[in-house]
């Protein structure tokens, strides 16, 4: 216990080498959690009197023993009623703020869905979801070209982006010296910070002409989009994968080296499999970023509402179509654009859910393993 506490003392320090840091992190988190549950067994009673407050210490002092039943607080009351009321109302204010996040998500979905709802009678949900033709002039609105477009763009950018990102993350966590990481890590974070409109601008003035020279045509299309999108998603995947790799205990690596494995064998057969889930999580989040990416894509894909017709034929995505047409749309057209927004929302929600379920599954598994070991 005492050893753990010393760990907590210097948690905010993140300047030492990556391996030490990761163990620090994991330990600190665990300690914080265990301490929290130790110290505050009754966080539900928000209007606590000092009696209960003192009880916290009593509890930690004789940890393990069953807590005594809470005494009625009427007798020994060190804090006035008004203070209690103040504490309680503050607590509920905080809860309200926290609930804002829930409210925000629900409002976003409610409003986008509400605006998209008339699709069911104006276009027909089935016609909208399976229609392959989008023509404002004719009043036909089929979402398939954009759904396919978004998927093609996302898939392609993952093919380009994930290997590059994971390899960079592996380099940062396994190969690079702390000094090299002092340059690489800020660089990756900076790359993540470049606004999409700047990357899109770079794509238009630099990448589009290059692609036009390579494959002919005007240079707008999926190939250009893939390059631009992978630049956009790579930092996200790199950062998250690096976190996953750093959280692998050093002991596993040492065991591998002790058996004479080379660095690469250790990385490929030990470290990456151990961090597999974290890397998959990172890729899914990168996927979410790719599918929601708007300005950069809009500027380089050519925006033709056609189903994927080759890597240099113009294509359009859900996000770019919304930006392109929202400003002047009205009536059914606007409804259909909100419909695309609703599809985007549902896709990003399901990606978050997938990550959540994956980590839950993982936790279950590790718990089972632990139980098996102790038994």
């Amino acid at each position, binding site marked *: 216990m005492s050893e753990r506490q010393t760990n907590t003392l210097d*948690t905010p*320090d993140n300047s030492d080498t990556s391996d030490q840091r990761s163990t620090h992190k994991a330990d600190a988190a665990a300690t914080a959690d265990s301490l929290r549950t130790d110290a505050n067994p009754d966080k*539900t009673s928000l209007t606590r009197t000092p009696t209960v407050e003192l009880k916290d210490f009593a509890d930690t002092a004789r940890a393990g023993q069953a807590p005594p039943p809470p005494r009625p607080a009427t007798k020994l009351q060190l804090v006035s009623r008004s203070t209690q009321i103040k504490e309680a109302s503050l607590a509920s204010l905080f809860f309200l*703020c926290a609930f804002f996040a829930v409210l925000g998500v629900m409002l976003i979905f409610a409003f986008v869905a509400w605006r998209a709802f008339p699709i069911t009678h104006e276009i027909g949900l089935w016609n909208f979801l399976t229609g392959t033709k989008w023509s404002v002039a004719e009043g036909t609105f089929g979402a398939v070209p954009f759904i396919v477009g978004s998927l093609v763009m996302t898939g392609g950018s993952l093919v380009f982006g994930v290997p590059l990102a994971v390899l960079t993350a592996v380099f940062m966590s396994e190969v690079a010296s702390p000094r090299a990481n002092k340059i*690489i890590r800020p660089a990756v974070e*900076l790359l993540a910070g*470049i606004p999409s409109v700047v990357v899109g601008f770079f794509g238009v003035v630099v990448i589009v002409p290059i692609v036009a020279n390579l494959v002919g045509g005007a240079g707008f299309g999926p190939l250009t989009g893939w390059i631009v999108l992978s630049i956009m998603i790579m930092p996200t995947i790199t950062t998250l994968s690096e976190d996953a790799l750093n959280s692998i205990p050093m002991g596993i690596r040492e065991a591998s080296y002790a058996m004479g494995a080379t660095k690469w064998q250790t990385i490929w057969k030990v470290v990456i499999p151990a961090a597999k889930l974290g890397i998959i999580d990172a890729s899914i989040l990168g996927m979410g970023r790719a599918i929601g990416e708007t300005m950069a894509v809009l500027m380089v894909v050519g925006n033709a509402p056609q189903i994927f017709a080759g890597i240099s034929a113009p294509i359009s995505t859900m996000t770019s179509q919304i930006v392109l047409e929202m400003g002047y749309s009205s009536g059914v057209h606007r409804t259909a654009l909100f419909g695309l927004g609703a599809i985007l929302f549902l896709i990003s929600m399901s990606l*978050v859910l997938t990550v959540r379920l994956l980590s839950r599954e993982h936790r279950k598994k590790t718990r089972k393993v632990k139980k098996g070991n102790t038994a």
Partner: protein
Amino acid sequence: MSKSLHQNSNSDQLANSAQATSEGRTTGMQVLRQLQEEHRQSESGLGKAHFYNRVALGVLWGATGITIGLLAIILIYVIVNGIGVITPEFIFTWPRGVNAEGGIWPTIIATLYSTGLAMAIATPIAVLAAVYLAEYAKQGKIVKTIRFAADSLASVPSIVMGLFALAFFVETLHIPLSMLAAALGLSLLMLPIIMRATEEAIRAVPRYIRWGSYGMGATKWQTVSRVVIPTATPRIITGLILALARAIGETAVVFYTMGIAINMPIVPIDSGRSMSVHLYLMAVEGINLPAAYGTAFLLLVIILVLNLSARWISKRYSRIDGA
């Protein structure tokens, strides 16, 4: 694979590994055997494994090189083309004429105005929400729901956020296309970022500090407001700065909420054009590319400075913590 290796690495299981190999499972011992075999087969002593090792490490170097290279190319390209455009006149004067020659002053103000306003809206809510999650909440269903909602909010595509802001703030609440409407949309974007940073900052505050406060008879709120939050503030500010950087570069949210025309915003219900939207319009109109390069350069510089100052703050305070 790694699990089996990990489990088998303790000594009593090592003995069983020969049996495990015969069952067809890959174990640490097997890897070792393979290695020894390869070693024996190679005459020079530098075996296939070492060759692969070198190649693979080379690939890792290459990948990282590409990553850094991409950043460098974008930065250098924008800087080289943009720096010549930057003059006091470009920063501090209005765009003139139909091709937006001259400066971009109103767009800079509109950007800072809307993001500042968004931060002012999002910060109190996000910080208090994080206080609730880290200090008050019972780890249970509600916290899980809130955390899931925050994660979801963070992953909502920015254009959907823009659609929502248009449908809700502008068309339902009848806030005109303005700084305020854009700021409300942006604050939704910043909320989860600030929340997460604050929560992590609060959780990193050592427990014993709180005990000291409680021990002196402080109430929960006193402890939180006078001990926990002040201690966590440097990290909270780092989070705020990063959220600000994100909002400054955002385009899709403000495209349909701020208005597009160039205007100098005075009150929050004034419309305007942000730097990011200006850059987009200059880029697609392509008539005044120097202005586009200049705007891109300024945007990058602002974001660069914010990112670096966030790093500086967290570094400086972690040093103090360590001392």
